[in-house]
């Protein structure tokens, strides 16, 4: 009795240990941080309060003028820097030259930054309404295709959790295949028509091997629709070659599965 109890305990603890060690959801993966985006803070004016619309223009114009001044103030050093070589060369000539080079570089570095800031500001002024409109539009679309979005986000959550593709990388790939896939339009909309294709890719995104996962279904009687769909999906993948894959992490996306499901499209 005790022996069997000990065996049971041993096995259970081994099971738990193995689960902890091997199953992915038990491992605390490092948080996948998105790449760092540098943000530059620019002073629009001394007053940081959000001004009323008519005032805002004035302030922005003022800041623009100020910045123009800043540009013009800072531009001269380049000219000054040129003057420097005219001076009488000192014994430690090389050091001096280095300094000059540095001085030449500096204004050039600053200039584009300033330009960027002003462009950024302009865009912000012009786009506020458009952004609002876009948000509204997005909301509308969300309302209409709520189901769809839910499904998509679920799948992408699943993917980003389990795989190496970021959302944008996945979207790029998806968009590419959207363009290549001519969906056969005669398909019935009420049948289960999911085609899963497993691909083995080369580093440049070309296809080494493609396999339809349910290929037995293609040759079954009464599955002509499925066959037509599977073939159209294969054509799409081949036409799209080379696939848009990320430049790094080949091991992660070497094997990839594409799930072709036209149901949403055929219903609409």
């Amino acid at each position: 009795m005790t022996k069997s109890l000990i065996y049971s305990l041993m096995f259970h603890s081994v099971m738990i240990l193995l689960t902890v060690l091997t199953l992915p959801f038990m491992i605390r993966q490092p948080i996948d941080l998105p790449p760092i985006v540098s943000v530059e803070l620019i002073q629009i004016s001394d007053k940081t309060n959000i001004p009323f619309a008519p005032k805002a223009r004035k302030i922005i114009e003022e800041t623009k003028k100020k910045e123009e001044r800043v540009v013009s103030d800072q531009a001269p050093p380049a000219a000054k820097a040129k003057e420097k070589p005219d001076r009488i060369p000192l014994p430690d000539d090389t050091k001096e030259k280095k300094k000059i080079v540095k001085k030449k570089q500096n204004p050039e570095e600053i200039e584009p930054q300033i330009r960027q800031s002003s462009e950024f500001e302009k865009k912000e002024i012009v786009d506020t309404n458009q952004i609002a409109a876009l948000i509204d539009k997005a909301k509308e679309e969300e309302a209409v295709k709520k189901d769809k979005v839910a499904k998509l986000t679920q799948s992408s959550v699943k993917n980003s959790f389990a795989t190496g593709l970021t959302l944008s990388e996945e979207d790029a790939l998806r968009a590419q295949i959207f363009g290549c896939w001519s969906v056969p339009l005669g398909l019935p909309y009420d049948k289960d028509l999911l085609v899963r294709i497993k691909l083995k890719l080369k580093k440049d995104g070309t296809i080494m091997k493609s396999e339809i996962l349910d290929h037995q279904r293609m040759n079954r009687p009464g599955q002509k629709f499925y066959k037509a769909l599977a073939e159209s999906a294969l054509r799409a993948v081949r036409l799209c070659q080379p696939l848009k894959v990320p430049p790094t992490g080949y091991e992660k996306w070497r094997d990839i599965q594409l799930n072709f499901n036209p149901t949403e499209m055929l219903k609409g």
Partner: protein
Amino acid sequence: MKKIFLIFIIYFSSLNFLYALIEVDITRGNLDPLPIAVSPLHVDIKSTEYEGIKIKELGIDISKIIERNFKSTGLFNPLKKEAFVQKPDIAHLKPRFEDWRLIKAQALVTGKILVKDGKLKVEFRLWDLTAAKEMTALAFTTTPSNWRRVAHIISDKIYERLTGEEGYFDTRIIYVAESGPKEQRIKKLGIMDQDGANTKYLTLGNELVLTPRFSPTNQMVTYLSYFRNLPRVYLLDIETGMQEVVGNFPGMTFAPRFSPDGKKIIMSFAEDGNSDIYTMDLETRVVERITNHSSIDTSPSFSPDGKYIVFNSDRSGLQQIYVMRSDGNEVKRITFGSGIYGTPVWSPRGDLIAFTKVRKGRFYIGVMRTDGSGERLLTENFYQEAPSWSPNGRVLVFYRETKSGSKGEGFSATLWSIDITGYNERKLATKTDASDPSWSSLLSK
């Protein structure tokens, strides 16, 4: 013990590997028609002459018919022949896939014909250009005068292989051919191939003919004709030209139609001044009453499995569409939208019902699911009605009349087709004015 451990470790590590596979869902694609190249069929040099047919041009003529068929579906985009790099004789044996891919073709049709000893032998192949492989290949022999049908049969086979559904090119359409002024129209039964070729007239035009309907199983037609001002239901065998009267029916008789097995005719007539639905067994000539209601019940149509009947009735006040079991039980109203609904026809595929709808003086042809949900109006016009399904349930043919002046001038009736997506509306070419079309089943079934 160690083995057990090893098995566990392998099992779990393989699980881990499975989890790591990237999955991407593709839920959208483009709706562009599939680019297809139809190479002219190569005419074998051993071919001999055959009266009335230009053998040398037969290959290109057949390929042109195939192209026209494909174009009419809206699903394919036949590419221009001028762009073809490879000649038909070599292409038929083994196409240079790269050359065809260059012109952006995804599929290629090649073929060979041989006319010898009064027989036409045809071979054709369909190639998948992206996969560089043959998708289907067929050969058949027939009489040379059948060359148009050969083109339609090839079109059907390719259509079926690429879309997964049956084709509808080797079919005919029967219709009421109209001529003369509006008040004194001469109406004859006309029949033509689905592409408008080979028009023939089956009646002389002495009597008024109405609502011809094809049998879903063979080349029989039932129609209504007035003889001494009495409506009679006729049965016509198109192959033999034999015609017989099925029966004289009292009062207003409407729209006889075959059952899916072709053994019965379903129609409506007024027994005691009130129109109800009846079936008649063609063998025993026994008439059976299906509905018995004080309202006007008309336009019955069977579901393809024969279990249900869809029909019109004004029992709710306005004319609406109802579905019942084929014995007349479990009558259920399925349309509730605003407007009047008429001429319901069950799709041969079984999933949809096509109908005519009248709303605010405009006529619509539409489809809906068999429970009345998912109504989609495909086309709107001044006057149009009587949709009839292609045998694969993908395209509808119907007729449209134009507005005429007070003396009937400017009046015309024409046949049109539209597919169930609502795109791809096309006018069918007929030699005279035409109305009340009915689409046959595939001739080569």
